[in-house]
């Protein structure tokens, strides 16, 4: 265990050092990648060891930062799940990054990106290992800052700078909330989680509520829960794609981890409204996230909004766990939590894959705008096939892993309908409806994402000239695609482990509810079962038999290749195709009351007759509400105050000296007034 821990830390640290020392050539690139892969392997081994063995790994380093109480690390089941999902995405991302960063060879950003990537991986892997406020906040801030620098890698684009500002602002606001939460529990300063647990037990109810709300704001911001998600659709597209994959696949999950660590572990659960709050935020994020994803034309922004949706879905499960725990429905709580954890792991796999796919598209065509893409399946067969697999998984379709966790979440919410309180029952019914709507819209969204990007006729010369990506980038995607398959087929083996992790958190003895029967997974009461392996195998066999039968019995005449039928039009151009915007149009109209798009049509008529039209220009935009009603006023107010303060900055030395004297006099006056010496 210790060896694996040190392997992980030294791996990442070596990678960071290699980037600094070895220059900006291929050697540095590959050395740092290799070291990162070794680090990720160490992390995965460590997590697997804790998950399988069940024993807690701990390591204290009191000499590091001794004046503040020293650093301490320990890894329990919950942390292991999150360390595992981080390491799962880390290795493929590093591999992919090696190919992606080739364009930066010989430029200073190569050095910076390699260093920061390894620091990011290191600090993110240490977050779930941190045992104590000091260690936790250090790692947390390290993760935030290194990811900020990664987002800013290509800072020469103006949009990147804006995205960085949003990201930094939201992150630091979250950090302030977390500091507040930790200080409320243990006012004395740094403490280990064990000490926090003991202190939390003695807190009055009001303080506990306050701590929880602060944790929801602080961690929810990192997780991207609506309305704290605003940085996500800005920062994810701006970052290099393997960094987006890491941020979306792993980093936002750390918000979920923190919420579980503080809410369930340290505070030990709370009143029912905690659960209702998290379910509410989750349902909101899920539905709004997917609705915004649907209307997005920028492939990476679409994926970013889809991450908001998936975090919402995870939060539904987490909220249900809180709620059931407060109602003493412990097996149901453990089940809901296991389902949420499984979805977190699954999302890491397929979202990582999809971001890398989007990155490959960006790399090959230079655009993220789906209205300029299309037809890439011919130029980039590998990327297309892998992206398709990711799309099927994220759309929650059987037999892939997205469906498995979606199924589990549906089943996990079901016991809530039986809750004695009508309010809880109604809440669960609404949550179920929202979850189902989210699933349906996600399917539509990913038909669009894959279909418009990869199928049909290329909509721009860049898309027509697209080429397949480097092997290292493909390798990264293949690893995650394989992970999707393994997570689905092996779900019957993984779920009992997750159940064992979830059970102690909600106050059940260790093995937790039984979620497995042979090759099938089942609900805690054993009444509903499902087997992705058997369904997948059945599907495979049926498709194979159908294929053989058609090959054997149907007409043997060869395929004739013709032109697409088009009502007698002479030539087909890409302008005739459905675009990304057109695809989403029906849903945009149906949910118009929610989107409230601004529309601007101007028609240029022929000078002689209004019946002939020269040109029509149509412009429509959707500005999310939250930004209009929540953030815009705050930003405007801040700006206003900043401008007032600016008046102090006269630039005259005399004025500054006057400020100094005034401050000194005031300070002295205050000392005299309070009677100190």
């Amino acid at each position, binding site marked *: 265990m210790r060896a694996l821990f040190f392997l992980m830390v030294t791996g990442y640290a070596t990678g960071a050092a290699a980037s600094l020392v070895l220059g900006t050539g291929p050697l540095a690139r590959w050395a740092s990648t290799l070291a990162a892969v070794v680090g990720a392997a160490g992390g995965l081994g460590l997590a697997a060891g804790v998950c399988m063995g069940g024993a807690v790994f701990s390591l204290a380093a009191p000499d590091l930062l001794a004046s503040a109480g020293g650093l301490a690390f320990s890894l329990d089941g919950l942390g292991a799940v999150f360390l595992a999902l981080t390491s799962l995405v880390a290795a493929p991302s590093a591999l992919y990054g090696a190919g992606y960063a080739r364009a930066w060879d010989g430029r200073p950003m190569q050095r910076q990106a390699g260093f920061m990537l390894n620091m990011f991986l290191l600090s993110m892997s240490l977050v779930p290992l941190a045992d104590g406020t000091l260690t936790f906040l250090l790692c947390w801030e390290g993760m935030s800052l290194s990811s900020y620098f990664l987002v800013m890698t290509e800072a020469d684009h103006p949009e990147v700078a804006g995205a960085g500002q949003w990201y930094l602002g939201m992150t630091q606001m979250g950090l302030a909330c977390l500091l507040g939460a930790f200080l409320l529990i243990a006012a004395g300063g740094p403490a280990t989680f064990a000490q926090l647990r003991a202190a939390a037990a003695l807190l009055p109810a009001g303080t506990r509520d306050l701590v929880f709300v602060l944790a929801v704001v602080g961690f929810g911001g990192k997780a991207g829960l609506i309305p704290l998600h605003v940085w996500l659709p800005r920062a994810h597209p701006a970052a290099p794609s393997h960094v987006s994959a890491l941020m979306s696949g792993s980093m936002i999950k750390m918000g979920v981890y923190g919420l579980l660590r503080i809410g369930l572990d340290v505070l030990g659960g709370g009143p029912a409204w905690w659960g209702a709050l998290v379910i509410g935020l989750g349902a909101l994020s899920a539905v709004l996230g997917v609705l915004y994803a649907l209307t997005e034309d920028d492939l990476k922004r679409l994926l970013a909004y889809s991450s908001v949706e998936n975090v919402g879905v995870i939060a539904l499960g987490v909220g249900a766990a809180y709620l059931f725990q407060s109602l003493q429905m412990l097996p149901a709580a453990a089940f809901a939590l296991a389902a949420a954890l499984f979805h977190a792991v699954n999302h890491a796999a397929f979202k990582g894959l999809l971001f890398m796919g989007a990155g490959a598209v960006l790399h090959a065509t230079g655009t993220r705008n789906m209205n300029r893409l299309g037809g890439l399946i011919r130029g980039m067969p590998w990327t297309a096939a892998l992206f398709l697999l990711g799309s099927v998984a994220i759309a929650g379709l059987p037999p892939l892993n997205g469906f498995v966790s979606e199924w589990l979440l549906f089943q996990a919410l079901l016991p809530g309908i039986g809750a004695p309180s*009508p*309010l809880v029952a*109604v809440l669960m*019914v*609404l949550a179920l409806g929202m979850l189902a709507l989210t699933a349906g819209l996600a399917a539509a969204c990913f038909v669009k994402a894959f279909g418009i990007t990869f199928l049909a006729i290329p909509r721009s010369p860049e898309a027509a000239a697209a080429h397949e990506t480097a092997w290292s980038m493909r390798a990264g995607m293949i690893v995650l695609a394989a992970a999707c398959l393994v997570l689905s087929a092996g779900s019957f083996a993984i779920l009992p482990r997750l159940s064992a992790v979830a059970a102690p958190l909600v106050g059940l003895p260790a093995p937790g509810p039984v979620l497995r029967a042979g090759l099938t997974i089942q609900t805690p009461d054993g009444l509903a079962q499902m087997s992705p392996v058997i369904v997948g195998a059945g599907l495979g066999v049926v498709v194979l038999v159908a294929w053989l039968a058609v090959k054997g019995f149907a007409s043997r005449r060869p395929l004739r290749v013709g032109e697409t039928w088009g009502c007698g039009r002479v030539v087909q151009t890409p302008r005739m195709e459905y675009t990304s915007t057109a695809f989403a149009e029906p849903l945009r109209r*149906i949910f118009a*009351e929610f989107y409230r798009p601004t529309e601007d049509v101007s028609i240029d008529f022929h000078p002689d007759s209004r019946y002939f039209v020269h040109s029509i220009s149509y412009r429509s935009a959707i500005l999310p509400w939250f930004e209009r009603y929540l953030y815009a006023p705050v930003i405007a107010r801040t700006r206003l105050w900043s401008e007032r303060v600016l008046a102090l900055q006269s630039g005259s030395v005399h004025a500054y000296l006057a400020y100094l004297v005034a401050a000194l006099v005031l300070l002295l006056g205050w000392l005299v007034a309070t009677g100190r010496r």
Partner: protein
Amino acid sequence: MSPEMVSQLSVGGSTLVLLGGLMMLWRRGVAAHIGAFTFQSVALAATMAMVGWFAGDWQLWAVAALLLLVKGIGIPLLLKRMERRFGSERELEPYVNTATSLLIGGLLVLLAYIVTAPLVSVSRLPTRTGMPLAIGLVFVSLFIIISRKKALTQVLGFLMLENGIALLAVLGTHGIPIIVEIGVFLDVALGFIVMQVFVYQIHETFESIDVEQLNRLRE
């Protein structure tokens, strides 16, 4: 009849009565609205008769018969005459669109379920199970009155509100003395006549029965 059966039947009957209200939100045409109201009144009469049979109370039978006669046959006929006179104005642009109205209707029913839970828990009658749906109908009818523009639709919303109250009374207390019920009927009939006159006047003044026109009276 076993009490379980009565519980089931009162939920079933109340659901049908409530569906009449929700149909108002769904459909646009006046004829469909009148149809929904007729359907609702018949379902209400049937539910009353069922409760009367279970409770062995002849008065409820009488009320049910009266209801069938007045609201199931009489008022729909009158309404159809009004429709013929004013021409069928469809509820084309309600304040809240149809799909949203339906969803709000559903939420109102869930709200009714939550708020009536304490009320239901103190009752011992097997018919108590339908009470949340009756309150739900009251909410839905109020929503119809608020969100629709045509005077005729609003009159129907008002009549449905009364149906909801009658349903609540029957399920919650096994009926109201027939004297009270007749009094309420007269009240409603009077209200209906007043509204008919009102609608007629609106039509005379504005050539339309869209109550949005009333905003013009301020000027």
